[in-house]
């Protein structure tokens, strides 16, 4: 039973000044994005800056300011009381009334942000901010004196902040960036959400701290069965942490597959371009001697687009910089080319005949303890019903 099903989400930005300058119309920041998240799963949303990944996450919790932003269409079905059991009610986050949405925010779906330096209020102690979130979503802790504080302390210890009893009364400026991100995670997790939206949580941190924070997230996921939507542009992070990958470009999903399938057999030229940018450790085959191929080189090469199986039937991967095939306009279709592997194609007649169910992958790679005490993923897939 999926925890979150996003179908054909579209968000536009516009304003009076924009209409005059750019000849009218609104800018579609997200134009038909779909994804499915299962309990305990990590779905990575990958793409370059401006592809619409942050807007997708923020629009799920309706955090975008309403006059410029507008949700054009789409549904986001979220199952309350998440977890493995069925029978819980589903609500559409995009049309939920404000009061009910506030209960979901923080209590069922938590979000952590990219910039730990400014994500905490500088005039309150760290403990006060965590306690505020706890009191909001678990009001029963207020009945015992020090109840909420105990929950906050436990949350801080769980994210690995040493000497938590003393540091709970410290101010944010007394923490380093990595510690602040841990505090953010503690705040997000203090209320036991079933889904965590992590908007580039480690982009602003150095690689050692990045590894620690991601390991922490993996550990918490394993302990609680929490699902994570991990927004990032680092493919290394995706490879180590994601179960399912959703590649976005210009507001649309370009490819959607299990992480192993995506890295082994990328079908869309843009994904191949992204992967080609990662320097191989062993000199790799298929690269020019000592030189990396750029994304531009890959997507400007028509031969790359012709590699798609079914090219002779008129199937071409969707790419906004190309001329669309005759009679198609700007329409694209997310087609399941192989079982469990979706690609965005131009909506030609051939593509319209192909099956295009909504992207839905319940797979989850299990974690296993290594001898060194860390968690690592095993290669075998674990499918959920």
């Amino acid at each position, binding site marked *: 039973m999926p925890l979150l099903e996003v179908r054909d989400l579209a968000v536009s930005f516009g304003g009076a000044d924009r209409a005059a300058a750019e000849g009218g119309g609104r800018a579609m920041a997200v134009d038909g994005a779909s994804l499915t998240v299962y309990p305990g799963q990590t779905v990575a949303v990958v793409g370059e800056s401006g592809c619409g990944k942050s807007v997708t996450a923020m629009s799920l919790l309706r955090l975008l300011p309403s006059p410029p932003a507008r949700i054009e269409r789409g549904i986001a079905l979220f199952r309350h009381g998440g977890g493995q059991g069925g029978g819980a009610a589903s609500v559409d986050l995009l049309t939920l009334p404000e009061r009910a949405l506030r209960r979901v*925010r923080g209590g069922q779906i938590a979000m952590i942000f990219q910039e730990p330096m400014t994500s905490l209020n500088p005039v309150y102690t760290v403990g006060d901010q965590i306690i505020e979130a706890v009191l909001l979503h678990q009001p029963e802790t207020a009945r015992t004196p020090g109840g909420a504080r105990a929950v906050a302390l436990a949350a801080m210890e769980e994210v690995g902040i040493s000497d938590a009893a003393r540091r709970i009364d410290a101010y944010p400026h007394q923490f380093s960036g990595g510690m602040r991100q841990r505090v953010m995670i503690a705040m997000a997790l203090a209320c036991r959400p079933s889904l965590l939206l992590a908007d580039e949580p480690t982009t602003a941190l150095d690689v050692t701290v990045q590894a620690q924070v991601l390991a922490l997230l993996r550990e918490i996921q394993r302990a609680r069965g929490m699902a994570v939507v991990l927004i990032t542009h680092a493919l290394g992070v995706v490879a180590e942490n994601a179960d399912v990958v959703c590649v976005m470009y210009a507001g649309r999903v370009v490819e959607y597959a299990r992480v192993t399938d995506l890295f082994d057999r990328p079908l869309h030229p843009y994904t191949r371009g992204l992967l080609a940018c990662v320097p191989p450790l062993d000199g790799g085959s298929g690269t020019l001697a000592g030189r990396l191929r750029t994304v531009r080189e890959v997507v400007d090469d028509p031969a790359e687009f012709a590699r798609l199986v079914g090219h002779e039937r008129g199937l071409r991967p969707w790419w906004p910089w190309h001329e669309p095939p005759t009679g198609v306009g700007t329409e694209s279709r997310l087609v399941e080319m192989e079982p469990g592997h979706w690609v965005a194609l131009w909506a030609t007649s051939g593509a319209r005949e192909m099956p295009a169910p909504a992207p839905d992958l319940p797979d989850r790679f299990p974690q296993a303890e290594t001898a060194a005490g860390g968690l690592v993923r095993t290669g075998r897939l674990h499918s959920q019903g």
Partner: protein
Amino acid sequence: MADRASHRAGPWGEAWARVVRRPGAACALAWLGVVAFFAALAPVIASGHPLVWTQRGADGAARRTFPLVEHLSAWDLVLAVGVPIAAVVLALPGRALGATRGERWRWVVASGIQAGITVAVCGLARAVLGEASAVTAGVIAAVVGGAGWLLPIVGRPGARAVMAVAVALGCVAACHLGSRVPLVDFDRYAQAEASGGATGVYTLIPWSPGQGRTDWYVKPPGWRVEAERGAASGGGAGGGRVFVLGTDALGRDVLSQMLHACRLSISIGLVSTGIAVAIGVTLGALMGFFGGWVDAVLMRLVEVVMAIPVLFLLIVAVGVLPTEWRTTHALMVVIGCVSWTGAARFTRAEFMKLRGQEFVLAARAAGLPLRSVLGRHILPNAVTPVLVDASFAVAAAILAEATLSYLGLGPPEQASWGALLAGATGTVGDFVWWLAIFPGGAIFLTVLSYNLVGEALRDAMDPRRRARTDLA
């Protein structure tokens, strides 16, 4: 370990430490402390009523009364008892009474607000309902004052309830005990002593601000009152008492008036700036956070109010108001109602800057309602320029009141530095130096102190001058 952690100062605590380190600001705060001390205790320190009055009756028995205490008004009682208690509570080190100093400050502020509202409402209720229904007035005042605790200043509900009840009871008691101060004939004390029938023990400065006799007209500092005619006892019968700073044109002691006027100068700041900040921050927050047409409409209102010249408005108000409303506090309310524009513009700018910050987004993502986000998260970050402006605004209000009193537009019975200053020119045009130097010096020092504190606050909060404490 926990104690040291609780000493760790937040951004405001650190800013305050920086302010206190500057010698100018430290002296300024010392002077303001002196003024506040006299504001609270002046009726006890300077009064024409004796502390203890022992009257020997015809039968030879001695009856002891305490006229000074009996003649204290409600405000006098509340301040004389409350301020020393508050000072002791705040001065306790570390984590006393189960709370940090920051929390204890919040207790004091909240109690002060409640006491102020309770006493003011009690007085109003008595005036409206009449003296007979004193109990009803007391109950109404207690309830209304208790509503002040709805303000989210103090967090813990248990402590809140205890303090609310204690302060309410104390204030209502003070209202009952405190009587209107009628016109008292102080001469009867002197006459009773002269005739030998009674003795009195006087407080430190044995003059009330309203106590004057025409034969004490414009006496220089250090002038000693001669003993009453036919006095047998030397000491207290009006004889031997000194006018330390001289007297004014109505024979009233200058030092006593100056001490009683300290209360006015403190309350000017609180009333006028408090009203101005309350109005300005509220409107500025609305303008800054919502933007759009709300901002456009309210900004026009701000511009209209900014165009009003305050001093002329006050002069007109004094002319227009009916006589019984021409109290100084009414004038302070008028000042407060037209000088909020600076606070509004600062707050608007800060809110516009802060509403895009990530901690605001994080607060909304955690599910906090809008009023919580505005009030608890954005507002404490936005008030720093308003605090600096408030300090300068208090100085301006004091000068405005002094100007009004000097022009003779203030109420005649109110002891005020400006009113004293008005007597310096004398009736014949000669210069009465002690009526110019002492009150003028007090005004000068107080305004200078507020300006120094405001400057120190501004420098302390300036992010560019702050030492970098970020570790990353």
